[in-house]
């Protein structure tokens, strides 16, 4: 049985993927997602783990109709760049929304969803996706 997913990578990335865990530079305050070991702004290695709010607005998006093997069930997949309240930009799929209903500026929140499966026998990967906030919250 061959596995396409790296088990150590899936395990190592679980907190950023499940909890939107980021790093914050104790020297300059910059927040990085995904987490880093060295700040890309000031070069400091003095970073701490922090959890992002999961609420933000869509900055840009694209719709993928031609998908990789194993992703046909999820198609069309909408990938968005979401700017969170903290000012950090996150690239992630959207869920529970149709391509025609997505707009730049749409308010979204993070939810935990399945993102991929390693065939019928391998690991299931769970991670953050974004879904639109309810209509009344868009104002």
């Amino acid at each position, binding site marked *: 049985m061959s596995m396409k997913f790296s088990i150590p990578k899936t395990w190592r990335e679980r907190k950023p993927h*499940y909890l939107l865990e980021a790093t914050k530079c104790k020297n300059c305050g910059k927040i990085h997602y995904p987490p880093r070991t060295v700040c890309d702004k000031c070069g400091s290695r003095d970073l701490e783990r922090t959890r992002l709010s999961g609420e933000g607005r869509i900055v840009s998006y694209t719709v993928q109709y031609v998908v990789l093997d194993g992703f046909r069930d999820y198609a069309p997949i909408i990938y968005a760049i979401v700017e969170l309240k903290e000012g950090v930009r996150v690239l992630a799929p959207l869920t529970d929304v149709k391509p025609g209903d997505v707009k730049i500026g749409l308010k979204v929140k993070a939810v935990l969803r*399945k993102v991929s499966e390693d065939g019928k026998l391998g690991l299931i990967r769970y991670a953050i996706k974004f879904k639109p906030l309810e209509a009344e919250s868009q104002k």
Partner: protein
Amino acid sequence: MKPVNDVGIAGWGVYIPKYRIKCSEIEAMWGFQPGYCRSLNVYEKAVAGVDEDTITIGYEAAKNAILRAKISPSEVGAIYVGTESKPYAVKPSITVIGEALGITPKTLGADLEFACRAAGEAIEASIGLIASGMIKYSLVIGADTAQASPGDVLEFTASSGGAAYVLAKRGDNTVAYFEGSFSYITDTPDFWRRPRSPYPYHGEQFTGDPAYFHHIISAVKGLMESLGLRSSDFDYAVFHQPNGRFPLKVASKLGFPKDKVLPGLITPYIGNTYNGSALIGLAAVLEQAKPDQRILLASFGSGSGSDAYSIIVEDGIEERVNLAPKVKDFLENKEYISYPLYAKFRGLIEKFEM
């Protein structure tokens, strides 16, 4: 059963996927007599999206329960999910949920299985752990993405959804408490699923009298006898809801009028969420109940067993209601889908692997 120290509910939360299929569409698809599903008192059912399963549903319900309990996830000392639709046959669901909520690693927990009643068992186990002082808070989740063979009558009701409860010692952040409980289980083969079988097998009418009705009635009567209560002492009655008809019938047999059952009867609008069924009904009742009111909760799981609880509502419940989305919000936020899309979402279409 009554613990030495009373245990109660600190927070509750539900999650119901937004997708719905009308039962009339399933009727038409498989050539049932029009109006068949009306005889079950079920009109539409909730369908998990293609990227949802028991883990994601349980996570969302638990997040809402923790919000209402106003606690830090790290305070949860035990986490249980009752389900019969685990994403993995071997690998716990609660480790993913616990990790994603920030509960792990200093906790105990497990996935429990007893058909639709496993979450009821989890409540009993949690009461014991909390009453004994071993843990402060327990998180109990009942969640399922119920399976039904296409064209089986079960397909009208088998749905997706979940509920979660944060339990604590009475008076320690609780807004309702368990006055007592009574469990009743026997070996009754009304419904089962063998290993490697994608869909359950059920005993048609056998699921009624010897299973659902006998076990719930026995548990509720046992509860009322042990506490010295009558049906008139309860303000609400919430039963497991395999369809919209059985809870009303069992209520009638036990002497509960319809108006005490309807506030917690949610299955007609979302189907049977299995381990979420009675617990979503209880959530709907908690969202309108007033302090000092008494609620009967009776779970049921095939195989078979029932747990009956008497729950007394306490002060402070009203201010918890709006801390998270309510059952009513989930009922209103819906999108109808076609049978083909439902079939895709539920994995009913077998793709040939190239």
